[in-house]
């Protein structure tokens, strides 16, 4: 399988006054194309820090993160920004949609930012919204959408530019269980279509639904478990209580 992302000995420390907190401790992680990786761990385990550092949103203190054949943190802020626009997508717990833009306008943002024409961006945005089941809501603004719909718009925005990897940080954290379920189903469907997804969650049900589960504790990876084969067959029996 093609390797999309490779992190080697990544270390990240936060300093507050005299205190130091090691948020990531010599982390190694590889993500292959087409994988669905969930990252779980208790509060403060470093899972969100992992997402921030490996996506290039945050700096690291040591180690290397390779993405698309390049060392991410050797790039300037400008290069990393361009990299994100063209190769990565992001989905966050609080949706973070622009309230004064319609659904279509929110989705086409990364396309416009990476230089696509207005017409092409709109066309692709509408197609992506359709793909996530919101083809009938393209002109609605976030305040006119339910929580689940807003998160679908956020997912569509993450997909619009055809990224190599989508990062999702607690995408169901602000949703009720039924809506969370439908959003997760969407993500699974997209994964089956070939999307590479790294998802951070504290929800065991969400975490276990992934193809691969990485467990974090105190900044270190304590477990890296392949839960399903590429064709979706579970490789670890649920009865063993993994992930609980």
């Amino acid at each position, binding site marked *: 399988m093609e390797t999309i992302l490779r992190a080697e000995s990544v270390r990240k420390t936060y300093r*507050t006054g005299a205190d130091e907190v090691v948020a990531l401790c010599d982390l190694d992680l590889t993500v292959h194309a087409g994988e669905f990786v969930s990252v779980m761990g208790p509060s403060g385990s470093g899972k*969100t820090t992992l997402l921030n550092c490996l996506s290039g949103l945050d700096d690291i203190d040591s180690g290397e993160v390779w993405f698309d054949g390049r060392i991410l943190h050797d790039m300037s802020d*400008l290069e990393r920004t361009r990299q*994100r626009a*063209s190769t990565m997508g*992001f989905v966050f717990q609080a949706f*973070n949609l*622009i309230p004064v*833009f319609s659904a279509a306008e929110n989705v086409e943002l990364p396309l416009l*930012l990476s230089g696509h024409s207005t017409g092409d961006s709109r066309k692709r945005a509408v197609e992506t919204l359709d793909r996530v089941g919101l083809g009938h809501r393209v002109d609605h603004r976030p305040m006119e959408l339910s929580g689940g719909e807003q998160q679908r718009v956020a997912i569509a925005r993450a997909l619009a530019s055809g990224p190599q990897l989508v990062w999702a940080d607690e995408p169901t954290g602000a949703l009720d269980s039924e809506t969370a379920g439908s959003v997760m189903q969407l993500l699974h469907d997209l994964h089956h279509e070939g999307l590479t997804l790294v998802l951070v969650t504290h929800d065991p049900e969400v975490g276990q639904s992934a193809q691969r589960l990485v467990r974090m504790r105190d900044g270190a990876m304590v477990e890296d478990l392949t839960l399903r084969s590429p064709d979706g067959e579970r490789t670890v029996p649920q009865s063993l209580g993994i992930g609980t």
Partner: protein
Amino acid sequence: MVAFSSTVVTSMVIVVLVSVPFLVGLVVHPVTRRLALRYPRRRLTESLLIVLGSLLGTGIITGSLIVGDTIDRSIRAIAYEQLGPIDEVVSVSGLEAGEQLVGRYGSLEDLPASTRTTADGDPIFDGVLTMMGTPISVVGERTQPRAQLLEVDFVDAAAFGSHDEITGITGPTPGPGQAAITTDVAANVDAEVGDTITVHVYGQPVDLVVARILDRKGVAGFWPLDSRQQAYNVFVTPGSLAAALSGVELPPTVEPPQTYVAFSNVGGVEEGEKLTDEAVAALTSLDPQLSVQEVKREVLTAAEEGAAALSQLYFTMGMFAVAAGILLLVNIFVMLSDERRSQLGMLRALGMRRATLVMAFATEGWIYAVISSACGAILGIELGRIIAWRANDILTIDDDVFSLNLTFAYDRATVFQGFAIGLAIAVVTIVFTSIRISRLNVIAAIRDLPVAHAGARRQGRRPVAAAIVTFLGVAWSVSAFASHGQYGIAMGPMLLIVGLGLLTVGRLGTRATVTWTSLLVLAWGTAFIPVLGSLDIDGDIQLFLVQGLTMCSAAVGLLMVHHKALGAWLSERSGGSLPIRVGLAYPIAKGFRTAMSLGMFAIVILTIVYLSFISLMFGNQANRITEEIAGGYGLVVTSNPSDPVDADQLLAVDGVDAVAPLAYSYASYEYAGSTDGWPVTGFGPELLTGPPRLEELGDFEHEDEAWAAVLDDPGLIIVDEFFLSDAGPSSVIPSPGDEMTITDPVSGNHRTVTVAAMATADFIAAGAYFGIDGYTDVFGDRAVASRFYVSASDLDAVEDSIGRTFVANGAEARTVRATVDGLLAQNNGFFTLMQQFVGVGLLVGVAGLGVVMIRSVRERRREIGVLRAIGFEPRPVTRSFLFEASFIAVEGVLIGVAVAFVGTYGLVLNSSGFMEGFEWAVPWRDVIFVAGLTLAASILTALIPARHAGRIQPASALRTVD
């Protein structure tokens, strides 16, 4: 092709420079376009508040520029009213000399052809007119003691210049026994056409029938006697004076008639001045001794200088309000970025470059700036109109000499200039704020976490920055002290203090560092004024702006680092009141926002209270000024030089104790590279019994010594700090030892003199004091004692008596105290006007507070929901917001007042400034009024958002996610 003035071109360049990048962004970048256009439309109330808060700055800038237009136009009106087509004047004293002058230059044809054209062959002159005049008094129903009898041929006068509209003279010359009088005479003596008036000419009363009344315009308004705007002219047929003086030998104690030859240059009233150099060269080529008075140029130059000076004064004072406006803009944009923080973080995460984020934010700001600047420029017209209206009231006083009628006027170019400057200031502020905002931490923004601690890289840069700033501070201070640079002396040490603060902050911590640096800056901000004084440096008005802004910044910084402690103390004192604790918590937590709000209030309050201090301290000086100016004399008597009162006659008046006769005229002074007109008083030994006080004695040990030396030595004079200035203290003040050339503009006689000593500020237009021998050398037969200082036990009674007794001599008596009171009242009026002008900036502070409160309620909606859910009632919620608004307003007011207190105290300590000898006095009434008004306005502004906060329903507030 339309030609644009340089003002319009410069303004256009500014508008284009600050607008093109945003216009390009709007057209080329769809994301920028959407973000910039969508928010203003969707958040209309907020957008309106931003525009309202921002437009005041441009309004103030435009208003101050329009003040200049009004002054310029009003003084230029003098050119139309008192000169018309007259560009240059040559004059001589005496009938015989007058005949000779007229014989040589009396008509255009008398001038050689070679002198009538420029080197390119273009004509210089389009008219020559001769007049003869002498000061008189006029009696009708009432008396006009100071008037002028003028002989001129009306037919010649009407043809003089390009049009009789400009000339102001129409109809036939008055016949024998008739006179044409100006509207000023008609009004003051209450005369109409057909009435008989009596004019006193060289001691003879002559009855004349009023044949015509002329508007004060052009030749009809020709008034060379003093600086008043009015022209009390009585026109009679040529030859009248010669007939009246036939067989009469005028004694040397009276000034003979003056003959004037007026020249009109091609080009009309204002454009003719452009040929003045050629005209003077042409005339002096005929006679190098000829003294040519550039009368039109003097008025137009005075118009420009007066306009520039007053405009600059208002502009500088207005800058405080503009500074408050800048703080408001920064505050608004920082709050907008707070609101949209998670969206901005997401945009960065999606791949929006920092530069694009800056462009999007700044473009939105540019849209607000364009609208607010345009509205502000229009508001500025009305502000200027109000100032002109109020200033006209202030400037129109009893004493004609110090009076000036203002006519509101403005150029569209000025309004555009105001718009351009306002737009530029707003855009620069917005761009810098946007750059600052764009440095958000992406993750913290997305997750709405507190701002991350400064990274190691930024901390590492601090010692370098500290070293650079410290070095710059040292270098600037040293070079400023060496070269006496006022701004470097003021700000160099402050920069040094900041640099040292940056060096110590790592060790001492922010709080301690800000505390000591702020205290030192405050101390230096107070101390540098006396230091400048000790170095004999007089500060510009702009230095006050520097002082105010730096001290306010230091005071706000000092308060902010101790804000938490203050809040805790207040909470404790309030007995744990929840509304107060909640009301204090937010301003303390949102330090940047609070600091901006405090700054807005403090800056404007500082200026208003500072002006109150100055006004009060000036007003308290009436007694001292009167005593110092009057010396041993309390009354100034002027009379017509053609028939002056005699000193013995004055001494014979009941109650008069002593009289000092003085000669008085206007001279031309060449000093410090420029030539200006100013009065001169020639004094004799009588003045030495009670001369005006001297402030600087030069090489002399006693004042008596200095006066005696000036009396004896024709090469010495005494001047004061207002010498040669038209608006307040001079920017170039002479010192003992300085040399200048004094010239009689009529005869051209001149002499180089040295300043022997400096008198106290001259409130009675005495000008330079010149010993009578020296005066006579220069002014010849015009050295006539027509002005007197009189001492008496009952000055008011003597003033009244002299005015009634010596009507024929055109005697006007006025106590020094009345003149000083009138001018101080005028001063006070101007200070009040300026306070009201700056007070417009208070609206900025209040609007700013309104915006902060509205944002507060919106941001804390969830918290309010929680408070309500746990039992907080609506009223305490409302009270907490009202307390918050009051807290900020009170702190801002206290800072402004405190800095004003300290700043004015330092001013009074200055050993050689214009406030030397002043006693520090607190204008309590004004301070309480301004503080109360600000507090009331702030509470009113906060009332609506506070009540809205109280009505928030817990359930809906807790449901709010984004």
